[in-house]
């Protein structure tokens, strides 16, 4: 999917490394930010100052103050991601293979999916308290549907020829599930993983933001309370870096596990 953007003519040439240009753009934006706030064209009270933000981040990591918060946020994210993916995979497989259950639950699934589920956060806070459970639950509801729909559609698009072939080779019901439906669904799960990692992260942060005593979202909320915009921006920067790292991990896992897929070996940029 990703490569479809580049034209054939562009691919014929050897690709030049883009990272110097990426770096240049970043420095330009940071430089402009620095110049504008320093010169007073932009009030630093509202827009922060890049050097102070950098100091704040460095301070967090040097004193180690950030680690318990970051640890909690990442734990919530990983748990939400793992539980949501497992549930989505299981329910997706079940509904795709059982037409009656699928037809029974179809309207409810559509309804729950179209509901803005972030609004469940206060309810989860009431049900599961202010600890990590309520954040994980919020993340799970967000991740679940992404994975569920891709598995559900993926299973129904399993090639009928491959399915017939497996049956002719002697596969029973369980073997079809394990050797045909599951690998086929896994490919679809991976195509949704990038989106669902992001969603797990959103669940954790929004949950923390609405009520918690730990986590990066909590740090940001505290800083906002005293109009400390530099700390807010520092928190956002740390979260963005974490999200990028998680996305990278998913890409690496994807490339390892989906080696069989056409074009997967060329899929990185």
């Amino acid at each position, binding site marked *: 999917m990703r490569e479809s953007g580049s034209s054939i003519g562009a691919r014929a040439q050897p690709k030049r490394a883009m990272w110097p240009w990426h770096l240049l753009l970043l420095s330009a934006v940071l430089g402009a930010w620095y110049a504008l706030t320093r010169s007073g064209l932009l009030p630093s009270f509202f827009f922060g100052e890049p050097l102070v933000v950098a100091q704040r981040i460095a301070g967090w990591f040097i004193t180690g103050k950030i680690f318990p918060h970051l640890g909690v946020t990442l734990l919530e994210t990983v748990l939400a991601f793992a539980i949501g993916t497992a549930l989505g995979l299981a329910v997706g497989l079940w509904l795709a293979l059982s037409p009656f259950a699928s037809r029974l639950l179809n309207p409810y699934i559509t309804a729950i999916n179209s509901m803005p589920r972030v609004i469940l956060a206060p309810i989860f806070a009431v049900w599961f308290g202010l600890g990590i459970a309520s954040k994980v639950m919020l993340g799970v509801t967000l991740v679940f549907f992404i994975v569920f729909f891709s598995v559900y559609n993926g299973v129904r698009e399993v090639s009928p020829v491959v399915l017939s*072939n*497996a*049956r002719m*080779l*002697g*596969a*029973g019901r369980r*073997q079809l599930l394990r050797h045909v439906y599951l690998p*086929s669904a896994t490919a679809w799960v991976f195509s949704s993983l990038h989106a669902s990692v992001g969603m797990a992260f959103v669940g954790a942060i929004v949950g923390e933001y609405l009520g918690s005593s730990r986590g990066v979202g909590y740090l940001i909320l505290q800083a906002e309370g005293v109009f400390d915009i530099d700390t807010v921006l520092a928190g956002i920067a740390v979260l963005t870096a974490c999200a990028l790292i998680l996305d990278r991990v998913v890409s690496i896992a994807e490339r390892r596990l989906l080696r*069989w897929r056409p074009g997967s070996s060329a899929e990185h940029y």
Partner: protein
Amino acid sequence: MSSVGAATAALEFMHVSCCFPDRAKRGQSYAAVRQASLTVGDGEFVALVGPTGCGKSTLLNVAAGLLAPTEGEIRAFGSALAGINRDAGYLFQPDSLFPWRSALENVAAGLEFRGARRSDAHERAQGWLARVGLEAHAAKYPHELSGGMRKRVALAQIWILQPRLLLMDEPFSALDVQTRQLMENELLSLWADNRASVLFVTHDLEEAIALADRVVVLAAGPESHPIAEFTVDLPRPRDVAEIGLQPRFIDLHRQVWQTLKTEVLSVYARERI
């Protein structure tokens, strides 16, 4: 030839009809196959030819047990068939390999499904890959193999189970002419070793005559059924690339084509309306 298979025919279609719901007219059904009777003797290579859309694949799916006939009965090696035909290997027209398994794992799949240990299955699969000339490509995934290689993996995948009956649905129609002749020769040499019974569906008359002991012509669909059969008395072993030059081949070709032409023209005439 038909007398050979009388007692223990590999496959007997007895007045088989297959009806499907008509997509164009709701609530109605049309019969792809009507009152089809056909026997494949033990060890016999039967080719089924007919114009497009004449229900050739339907008959194969019935023989495989993937499709239950609406009427009539199907017997495999003397007993009525219910569910998947466990004696049959099925070579499909489109790609049927598991894309997430390497060539080796694909060939081993059938043994694993039938309860063999993974290591044993892989060991035997390696041997079968070598027989189709792909031992160097064992670790490759289907998308990394050419069309001809994929067909050879598919052949090995089926042959490793030593099926007593082979069902083939235009297996080589997507290949280029040279690869196709190589594959046909490969098929004949594999077949010469174990002499399974074969039901081979094709729309290519030359392929049918070159490979088979007997060519059965199906009427144009719907309500298709066998209308004629011809015994191919060409000597074996045959070389597919050269057999077409023999006078007897040309003679047979003319005979079968006389029958087939009428059916093909009737389909053509119907489609022009």
